[in-house]
């Protein structure tokens, strides 16, 4: 019960400032006026799912999020492995470098990405000098969102994965290699399983963060399809339909909750394993 008492203060904050307002907002989307009376109905959600552009946006959001998580994870894992198992000035330098995006506010990161990747941007200019003409714009489309999300997420993912890797005893790896396991096999059989929790945390938090991000898709995304967060804002501000906006928010929350469940599942799985 002591535990519960300690947990309650932040939980009350959460209930009061997030859960109750969210519940109120979602309840509002269910209330419909019919013949002068307020009834509860799912018509708004039905309308939302009937609208082709909204369906497309949901699919697009999930795909972009998965792609960003996948690329970030692959890059961050490689980087974390290098930082964990390699010493020397390159490692030190990289260790200082990869962390930078964490400290750059997302508005600025997106803005910098635009100057870097746009039509006639810096990448195009560099390619032009080595003879590649007419590089298309790499921003204002799905590629731009994925690249910027990856850029912004690498520090977080690498930090978590690296921390997991630091916890693996060198002796375990040495003994695996002593019995003749190759590097890849050592990685798959020893390192990866021992780093499961870090993997689960990285994946689920990246997923939730990227799914809900607004600034990056707003600034570097294209016109259509758009990420759900941008569509929500459009419905709220431009189409004068805050009800659909909140309905979309609820859907986005449900998708994020699945990733949250994966996190808790992963963490408790480890607990059982440890006991």
């Amino acid at each position, binding site marked *: 019960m002591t535990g519960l008492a300690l947990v309650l203060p932040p939980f009350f904050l959460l209930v009061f400032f997030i859960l109750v307002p969210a519940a109120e907002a979602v309840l509002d989307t269910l209330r419909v006026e019919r013949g002068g009376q307020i009834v509860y109905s799912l018509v708004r959600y039905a309308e939302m799912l009937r609208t082709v552009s909204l369906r497309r946006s949901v699919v697009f959001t999930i795909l972009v999020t998965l792609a960003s998580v996948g690329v970030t994870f692959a890059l961050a894992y490689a980087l974390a492995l290098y930082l964990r198992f390699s010493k020397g000035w390159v490692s030190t330098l990289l260790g200082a470098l990869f962390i930078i995006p964490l400290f750059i506010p997302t508005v600025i990161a997106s803005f910098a990405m635009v100057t870097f990747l746009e039509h006639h941007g810096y990448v195009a200019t560099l390619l032009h000098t080595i003879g590649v003409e007419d590089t298309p*714009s790499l921003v204002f489309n799905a590629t731009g969102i994925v690249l910027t999300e990856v850029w912004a997420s690498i520090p977080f993912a690498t930090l978590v994965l690296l921390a997991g890797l630091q916890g693996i005893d060198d002796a375990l790896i040495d003994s695996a290699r002593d019995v003749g396991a190759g590097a890849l096999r050592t990685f798959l059989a020893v390192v990866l399983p021992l780093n499961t929790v870090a993997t689960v945390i990285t994946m689920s938090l990246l997923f939730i963060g990227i799914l809900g991000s607004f600034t990056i898709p707003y600034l570097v995304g294209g016109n*259509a399809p758009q990420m759900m967060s941008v569509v929500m804002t459009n419905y709220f501000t431009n189409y004068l339909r805050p009800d659909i906006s909140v309905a979309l928010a609820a859907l986005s929350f449900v998708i994020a909750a699945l990733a949250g469940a994966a996190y808790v599942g992963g963490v408790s799985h480890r607990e059982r394993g440890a006991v």
Partner: protein
Amino acid sequence: MRNCFRIPKRTTAFLAVVVVSVLGLYGIPARGQMAGVTLYISGDTNIQEMFDKDLLPLFERETSVKTKMVFLEHGQGAESILAKIIAAKRTGQQTDVDLYETQPTFIAQGSSEGIWTRITKDNMANAAKVDPNRPEVLVSNGFGIPYRGSSVVLAYNSKYVKTPPRTYDEILAWIKQNPGKFTYCDPQTCGSGAAFLYVALYKYGKAEDFSGLTYDQARESAWEPALQLLRSLKSNIYNNGFYPNGNVAVLQLLGRENIYMAPVWSDQGMSYLDQGLLPKDIKLVQVSPPFTGGDSAIAIPVHAEHQASGLMFLNWLLTSKAQTIVVNKLAGYPGIDWKYMPKDVRDKFAGIAQNFSPLPNAKYQADAKRLWQEKVAGSGQ
């Protein structure tokens, strides 16, 4: 384990000391000095500069009422300010927003909540000088007062475009002949792109049907061919159908000669030319039928903390002296009728900017933007 409960308390005390001393170092400011009037202004940089450097200092000198301005980039953040005003009304409190300049559609959105002061010549003398049939007034359900106006015009690069289009149809023809050299910004992010959309809609449905106060969704079926038309343009738009975010992004594409033609706001185009951010070859013309104009109005919340100062500021803003500054700075047209403007200003500007099509009302605008997103941008290839 039992005893552990005491520990966090110690930590708490320790951290509390840290918090207090840190706050002591920073010095928490008082709730802000009582500014005479707090203005929330949205627009682009030229508007911000005009208020910061010209209007506000002059007003403070003349009236010795202090001002405080919160500047919102066009559209961004405007919805949260509206949410804030509505929330204050619902909880029966005053809001710090004494005066809110925003898109007339936002003002219309709040009018059903009863958050705006009805401004007439009885509570603000200069209201009499404003034409009640101005699009800004109509679109905002009568709660918005315009103080500046500009219209959307066609910008083209005379180095590449030797015979500029004179009509909307000629623009359409030019786009098809010169693929990739035209774009308009995403109508949800800017007025100049929205103007391009509305004029397309007016090609097939009469402007008068949509600019009044009535709303009938069934009428929107008349827009279908216009939306088809815009969709058919998509492959000829810059970068295979890229509609940038915001007015500024379009000006930058023009400046870098990525495109040769686009609709832009007359005031912004002029100020970019003045600052050397656009090449001298860029020319601005109005076409026929003209693009829409007027995308900004001021409203005053009924529950504004300093409502009287808000009204006083607005009244001052509509004097011919202040309006002359506005017209000169923005190269646009005034909020009050031209007949109340000094003769020299009238002679200098009256010709250019008066020519514009009316805006659709708030609900039609919202639907038009949504349909554009669904049927033009979101239509796939």
